[in-house]
């Protein structure tokens, strides 16, 4: 089975080629069959490979496949090679699994769009790029996938390019991502310069010999890589593109901007965990940025009225959790949250898509309300996802979030302040998610009559993926039960061989003060559950029970509310500090340097010769006798020179 590893990325590529080369020439049924079929087959291969991998002994779980040598120049030797280890196995399952469901959902969602073929071609190309990213066995091939998903993200955000805001959002995403990619490249160069190889295995093996632990070089390299991660995974300061990315079709938001692509940064840090473990300062930066982003984005999410924007800020916030986990060296907790988040966030987005579909493309929650009885399946599934993301015990989000919070408190890299940030974020998350539920599905129906007439539950091809994701959102967490429940954390055990030091360290740490820690873990768990329940009660009180109170509270806090609704004016700040000076500088280069200096120099040179020629051309009188006279005088002068000069 191992020799079929290349099929996992190849199948979506074939789907892309078929759909991409034959745009507009295939009937819709064939397009959807090719697109869903290629990803579905890829999922089947991925599942079979997963069981192959599971059959191997724990410390030998590695399937490698080298297709050919890609670059061989002096010491730079890069193979086109794929690597399946426990970490990438989880990633390909998430990418192909969630990706497949979203492909199926898209068939229904995009049924009326005129660019059906183009949409699925892009979607397949994205799946291919993402699979290359997670299966790559070296930095360079990973970078290829990294850029590929960036490109597809751009193409799909600007999918409805006739809309100015959509094409602007696409460009914004691409440019902001390029800034991050620059950091990734620099980090890659530093690593290659010192280690002389780009293979993950070689780098991980040689890094302890090459770099001094905690030294400047490794810290700078890790920080550069982290800059790349902040771009792709929408962390402070490069998160600004993600909320705008909601201009794309909703299934795209679900697949790319919630479940898969934005987790590439988390995956990359987990993949290079050996390097990060050697750079505690870089880890601390990761943790602080992650925790700050989690809180920051959650507060913005409180005051958004667009249903997709709430989910977008929620995604930024949850990604912050994942980075917080990585930053406290709990890489497997980060990947665990990545997986559960992929389930419930994809479900939330697809549910939102179903709501938008029913509402004739309206996204403002103030115009919704009372949709519960019209959209029963959407309501049930979204409620499950909301319970999961809020961290209600029993749902998947509870286990992963709780593990992150506990690790941020107990890990040797953790700190109580990080826990507090994560703890507050958990409360805010529950509040804005239930605000969304109450505004959308409960209360009076605030939409206009025309919209109301068209409200309908979505077709089967959309609701079935919702139900499958809902099941996954409930049971997805069971693979990673915390130790204190007396269960085995299969997830952490599974990832153990890939993650360098932390699990053993944490284990010894836990053993040393087992008693105290266990009771502490229980206390923290109850505290966060209590906070979440309070937040839900508050949301219920403000948006369901006593909506007048919500209005008067909003008036009292109008200053804070405006600030939040305007996203802390970060876009305006970037506009004034980065974009405006760049425009002014570009204008200077254009109007002054290019037009006046460069063009002026060349035009001046040309007109100089023009003027000289103009003065001299009068010598060309056309009169033969005057030419002859000049000739004779010339001869006389030359002869005189030689005759007189020779004496």
């Amino acid at each position, binding site marked *: 089975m191992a020799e079929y590893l290349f099929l996992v990325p190849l199948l979506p590529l074939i789907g892309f080629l078929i759909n991409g080369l034959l745009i507009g020439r295939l009937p819709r049924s064939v397009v959807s069959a090719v697109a869903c079929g290629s990803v579905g087959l890829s999922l089947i291969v991925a599942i079979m490979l997963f069981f192959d991998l599971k059959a191997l002994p724990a410390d030998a779980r590695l399937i490698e496949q080298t297709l050919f040598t890609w670059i061989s120049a002096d010491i730079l030797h890069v193979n086109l090679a794929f690597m399946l280890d426990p970490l990438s196995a989880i990633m390909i399952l998430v990418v192909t699994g969630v990706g497949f469901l979203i492909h199926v959902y898209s068939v229904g969602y995009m049924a009326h769009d005129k660019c059906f073929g183009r949409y699925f071609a892009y979607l397949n190309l994205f799946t291919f790029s993402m699979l290359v990213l997670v299966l790559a066995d070296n930095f360079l091939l990973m970078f290829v996938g990294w850029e590929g998903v960036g490109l597809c993200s751009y193409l799909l955000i600007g999918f409805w390019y006739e809309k100015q805001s959509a094409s602007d959002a696409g460009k914004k995403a691409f440019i902001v991502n390029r800034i991050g990619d620059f950091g990734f490249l620099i980090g890659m160069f530093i690593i290659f310069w010192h280690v002389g190889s780009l293979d993950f295995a070689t780098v991980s093996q040689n890094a302890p010999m090459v770099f001094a632990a905690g030294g400047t070089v490794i810290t700078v390299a890790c920080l550069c890589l982290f800059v790349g991660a902040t771009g792709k995974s929408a962390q402070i300061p490069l998160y600004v593109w993600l909320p705008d990315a909601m201009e794309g079709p909703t299934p795209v938001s679900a697949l790319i901007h919630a479940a898969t692509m934005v987790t590439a940064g988390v995956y990359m840090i987990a993949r290079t965990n050996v390097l990060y473990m050697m750079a505690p300062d870089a880890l601390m930066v990761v943790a602080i940025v992650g925790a700050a982003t989690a809180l920051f984005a959650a507060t913005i999410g409180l005051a958004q009225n667009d249903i997709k924007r709430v989910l977008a800020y929620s995604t930024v916030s949850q990604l912050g959790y994942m980075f917080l986990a990585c930053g406290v060296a709990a890489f497997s907790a980060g990947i665990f949250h990545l997986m559960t988040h992929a389930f419930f966030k994809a479900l939330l987005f697809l549910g939102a898509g179903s709501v938008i579909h029913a509402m004739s493309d309206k996204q403002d929650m103030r115009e919704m309300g009372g949709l519960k009885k019209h959209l029963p399946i959407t309501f049930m599934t979204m409620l499950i996802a909301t319970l999961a993301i809020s961290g209600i015990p029993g749902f998947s989000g509870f286990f992963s979030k709780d593990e992150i919070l506990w690790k941020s408190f107990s890990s040797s890299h953790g700190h109580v302040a990080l826990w507090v940030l994560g703890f507050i974020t958990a409360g805010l998350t529950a509040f804005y998610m239930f605000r969304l539920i109450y505004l959308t599905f409960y209360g009076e129906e605030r939409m206009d009559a025309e919209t109301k007439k068209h409200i309908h539950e979505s077709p089967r091809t959309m609701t079935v993926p919702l139900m499958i994701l809902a099941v996954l959102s409930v049971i997805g967490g069971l693979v990673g039960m915390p130790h204190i429940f007396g269960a085995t954390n299969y997830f952490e055990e599974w990832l153990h061989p890939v993650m360098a030091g932390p699990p053993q360290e944490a284990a010894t740490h836990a053993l040393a003060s087992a008693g105290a820690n266990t009771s502490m873990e229980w206390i923290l768990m109850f505290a966060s559950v209590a906070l979440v329940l309070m937040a839900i009660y508050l949301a219920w009180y403000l948006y369901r029970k006593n909506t007048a109170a919500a209005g008067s509270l909003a008036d009292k806090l109008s200053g804070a509310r405006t600030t939040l609704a305007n996203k802390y004016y970060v876009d305006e700040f970037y506009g004034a500090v980065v974009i405006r000076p760049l425009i002014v500088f570009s204008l200077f280069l254009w109007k002054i340097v290019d037009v006046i200096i460069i063009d002026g120099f060349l035009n001046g040179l040309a007109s100089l010769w023009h003027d000289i020629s103009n003065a001299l*051309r009068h010598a060309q*009188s*056309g*009169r*033969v*006798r005057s030419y002859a*006279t000049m000739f*004779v005088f010339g001869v006389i002068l030359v002869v005189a020179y030689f005759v007189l000069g020779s004496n």
Partner: protein
Amino acid sequence: MVPISAYLILAAVLFGIGTVGVLISRNVIVMFMSIELMLNAANMVLIAFSRALSIADGHVIVFLVLTVAAAEAAVGLGLIIMIYRNRATINIDRFSLLKW
């Protein structure tokens, strides 16, 4: 015996007359004749030195020059006839098409 300087002075005078003729005449035929005069002044110098130094080379060259000059005269007169046929004039000042 006539001294060689006399031949040279005569040649110089002929050359000078030819040159002035070319420069001041407007008639192409007169210019052409003046050029022939300059050519023969040069021939005269060759003959004079050849005789004075008793070397036959000068004579040989002059015969060659005379032959070429005959051909050149034919071509030149042919050109002049063609110019006259086209423009009905042989005033050199009227042929200034190549001026600025």
